[in-house]
């Protein structure tokens, strides 16, 4: 069997799995803190409406969490089945980070999730509030470790190489590697934005179905207010993250901007079709010099193009994914601010409720495309400058990979369809009073 087929299948399979997986944590990390907020509000006010809110969104959370757990278990196996060379080379650094995630976060969230979901009538209120807090804390802690590992793969630090194998000599430098603070903040905000649009969007769906529902209107407002604050903040943090990437992974930036040649006073490309063969852009629409201003805060600064790098990622997917992410981000700012403006009358017009419902999963689109930018943008490296993706591939043949990929596609398809059906149903029914 051809080795490149197997590599492509291994990448497709892992990519599919991780893309499917990331949807659910990106919702639950933020949603867990919203649940904690609802739970505290109920403890504070003893208002049955808060309890109903908590109960409804706990169901959404449990469903999403289960989807994340099962696809996450799959990933822990696929590290070994699909990328044995990864652990062979960088296992001494990556391994402990993963182990700490399991030890400090997985058990915590899994155990207290049980208490949070089923324990309300069995434990005193303070313990139930604590359990809700620990679930939220656990999911964020899990994000901390996994983003430390991902950031380290982007911008490795704190290690030495002994006989072709990496050894960590400064764990703080490994964890707090150059891109980690930016990526962590960017991802946490992404998760809160995803959760706030799901909250607002599904509440809008309920209002469309029921006409009037005070509980749904309140959660809609919570989602809109949160999004209106966080969406502009995310634009700022994203810009900072981009400057960090320019410093440490300039080839990724060049691919994001489809800048084929090093240039002074680089234009900002609004749209183009990157032509990999001829190494230029077709049909491009650009604003002169604005690219240099965004990246270097100077109209005439020089920005390194793809020709300056021996290895660079494929340009078109990174270029387009980046534009999708930014586009959705701008849409989120507009929709949340406009909603806030319209809400000053206390309610939203029907058309706008439809729009908000349509934006329910905008966070997923933005997160997935951002993830594509950062992961494809790292290629051909698995760990920047240390290990190439092709060198980490395993020996499992294409036939086995193909067969299991088919099974995964069927199972994921079934799970995702059921998830969407149940979510729509739950949201349509609203909170029981």
């Amino acid at each position, binding site marked *: 069997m051809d080795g490149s087929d197997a590599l492509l299948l291994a990448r497709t399979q892992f990519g599919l799995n991780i893309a499917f997986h990331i949807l659910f944590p990106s919702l639950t990390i933020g949603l867990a803190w919203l649940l904690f907020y609802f739970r505290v509000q109920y403890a504070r006010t003893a208002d049955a409406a808060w309890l109903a809110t908590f109960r409804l969104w706990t169901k959404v959370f449990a469903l999403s969490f289960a*989807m994340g757990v099962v696809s996450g*278990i799959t990933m822990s196996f696929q590290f070994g089945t699909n990328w044995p060379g990864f652990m062979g080379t960088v296992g001494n650094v990556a391994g402990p980070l993963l182990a700490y995630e399991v030890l400090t976060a997985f058990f915590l969230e899994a155990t*207290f999730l049980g208490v949070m979901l089923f324990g309300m009538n069995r434990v005193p209120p303070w313990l139930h509030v604590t359990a809700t807090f620990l679930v939220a804390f656990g999911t964020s802690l899990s994000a901390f470790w996994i983003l430390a590992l991902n950031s380290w793969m982007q911008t490795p630090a704190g290690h030495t190489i002994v006989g072709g194998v990496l050894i960590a000599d400064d764990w703080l430098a490994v964890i707090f590697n150059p891109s980690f603070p930016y990526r962590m903040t960017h991802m946490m905000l992404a998760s809160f934005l995803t959760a706030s649009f799901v909250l607002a969007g599904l509440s809008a769906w309920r209002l469309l179905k029921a006409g009037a529902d005070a509980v749904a209107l309140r959660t809609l407002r919570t989602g809109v207010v949160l999004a209106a604050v966080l969406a502009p903040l995310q634009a700022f943090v994203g810009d900072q993250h981009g400057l960090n990437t320019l410093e440490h992974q300039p080839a990724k930036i060049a691919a994001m901007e489809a800048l084929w040649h090093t240039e002074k006073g680089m234009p900002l490309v609004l749209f183009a079709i990157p032509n990999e063969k001829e190494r230029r852009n077709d049909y491009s629409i650009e604003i002169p010099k604005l690219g240099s201003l965004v990246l270097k805060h100077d109209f005439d600064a020089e920005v390194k193009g793809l020709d300056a790098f021996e290895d660079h990622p494929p340009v078109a997917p990174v270029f387009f994914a980046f534009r999708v992410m930014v586009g959705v981000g701008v849409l989120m700012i507009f929709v949340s601010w406009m909603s806030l403006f319209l809400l000053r009358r206390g309610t939203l017009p029907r058309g706008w409720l439809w729009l908000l419902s349509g934006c329910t999963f905008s966070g997923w689109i933005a997160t997935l495309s951002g993830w594509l930018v950062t992961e494809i943008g790292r290629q051909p490296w698995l760990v920047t400058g240390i290990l190439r993706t092709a060198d980490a591939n395993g020996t499992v043949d294409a036939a086995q990979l193909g067969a299991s990929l088919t099974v995964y596609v069927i199972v994921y398809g079934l799970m995702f369809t059921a998830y969407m059906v149940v979510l729509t149903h739950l949201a349509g029914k609203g909170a029981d009073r």
Partner: protein
Amino acid sequence: MMPDLPDVPMLPLIFALLMGVSILAYVVLDGYDLGVGMLMPAADALEQNRMVNSIGPFWDANETWLVLGVGILLVAFPASHGVILQALYLPVAAMLAGLMLRGVAFEFRMKAEGWHRELWNWLFWFGSFLASFAQGVMLGRYITGFEPGFGYWLFALMVGAALCGGYVLLGATWLIARSEGALQQKSFAWARWGLLWVALGVALVSLGTPMVSATVFHKWFSMPQLPFLMLLPAASLALGLWLWFLTGRNAIDPSREWRPFFGTVAIFVLAFAGLAYSIYPWVVIDRIGIWEAAHPTALKVMLWGTAIVLPFIVAYNVLAYWIFRGKAKENLYD
């Protein structure tokens, strides 16, 4: 003759032990909830609710032991991890598909109505069975050193069937302790079926393992250790007979209703000890030893983490079992 093997350093030994404990914890804990899943078609709709409710608060934490076990393999024994998981590629994929289906079925069956609910009940059963069977096949392939050939695969398939029996026994004895009335009555009968099934399986694996591996054969059938080693099967047999006796009367004193479950756990521990003895000091039999572990810098930092965190994990797991003690109800939130 055993070949001379290098000494096993302390740190890898500790991690081999930790990995063993995690896998054993997983087998026992997820074993009972997979077993309950496999028993679903034998119960009526209301009983099914109680059965699922008896495991609802625990299954997620139970599966985390699997992640920890495979995580330690990944992190502490990376060379073996690649070999084992690539050799077990297909059964692992089948197990994961099974675990996924049953994991989400917990949520979906609760929220679905009509034929949707029936579908998820069925998928819950199928996922539990597929995961259990695949784990048995993985064990069978692992014991035989992943040898190709029809006979070895047949052996692995039989281990798969035997492990299903073992999990059914765990599930049924769990239900004896966690249910009452007609469901408890049924559980006694289920436990007996599971016991017969598991007796067959354990005999098969015990006989098969020395036959498929000369290394294992030497470790068991040589003097002077043979008489002492025979205590393991003897104790398993005694426990099995005791369980047969306990489950035969269809009634049990409430103060003793956990005995069948813990008797079953003891059988699993003995079988696991026998397996560990057979394999030590290899991680992959005759190929990769425990000493081929990760770098000490990585092992040390993980050992610190484990030593600090593991007591907390055990403590809050115990807390969860205490909170959700008592007989399972039809309504999950009571």
